């Protein structure tokens, strides 16, 4: 199942409607849905924030394969940004020292099972693939 979404936070409701259609069609256990929605929102909103003026829509594809849910997010005409590079985020300091922001990409690997990033330089296309085991 796949669909393209306008680069806006306002697309989130349509995205969650899309994921719900996929979960229903593929009978995905409800306990996996929060984590997948979380990863998709964080990756999509990252694309929105850092390429706000880009007119291209973001392609989201989802499939069930060999006991895993596999999701791809593809962004067109963008500079490379490898979301799999580990970024230091402080999750232990006292309240007054905590920074607002940066948590999203830090949390994704804790919610899902694998994440890969691919950049096609001639096409200027970023493609993120993540998996969630459906055990």
């Amino acid at each position, binding site marked *: 199942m796949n669909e393209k979404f306008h680069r806006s936070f306002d697309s*989130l409701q349509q995205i969650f409607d899309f994921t719900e259609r996929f979960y229903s069609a593929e009978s995905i256990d409800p306990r996996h849905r929060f984590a997948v929605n979380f990863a998709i929102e964080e990756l999509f*909103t990252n694309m929105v924030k850092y390429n706000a003026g880009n007119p291209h829509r973001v392609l989201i594809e989802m499939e069930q394969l060999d006991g895993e849910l596999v999701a791809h997010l593809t962004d067109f005409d963008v500079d490379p940004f490898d979301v799999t590079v580990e970024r230091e985020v402080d999750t*232990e300091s006292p*309240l007054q020292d*905590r920074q*607002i*922001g940066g*948590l999203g990409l830090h*949390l994704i690997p804790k*919610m899902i099972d694998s994440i890969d990033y691919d950049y096609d330089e001639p096409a200027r296309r970023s493609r993120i693939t993540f998996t969630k085991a459906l055990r």
Partner: protein
Amino acid sequence: MLDIDFADAGVVMLKGRLDASQSEKAQTFLDGLDQASVLDFSNLEYISSAGLGVLLRTQKRLMASGGGLKLINVNNHIMDVFRFSGFDHIFEVQGAVDP
């Protein structure tokens, strides 16, 4: 969608999804709090990092004036997010009781 409003005894009830498209609405409401407050998450299905930012910003402001947020009836998925982000150390958090 997110609904946020006062319920009995000044408890703030949240219902729906606290995602990036709803964080401004939540922030506007929580900016109106001026004392220690209880947020009831029993009908909050989902939160993303945008929602965490709203909670953190509010907690910093209220703690600076001696208040703070207590988060109650938090579902297991949201509790996981709190643990992974260390929010369980900077908020008073009470999980939902399984039926």
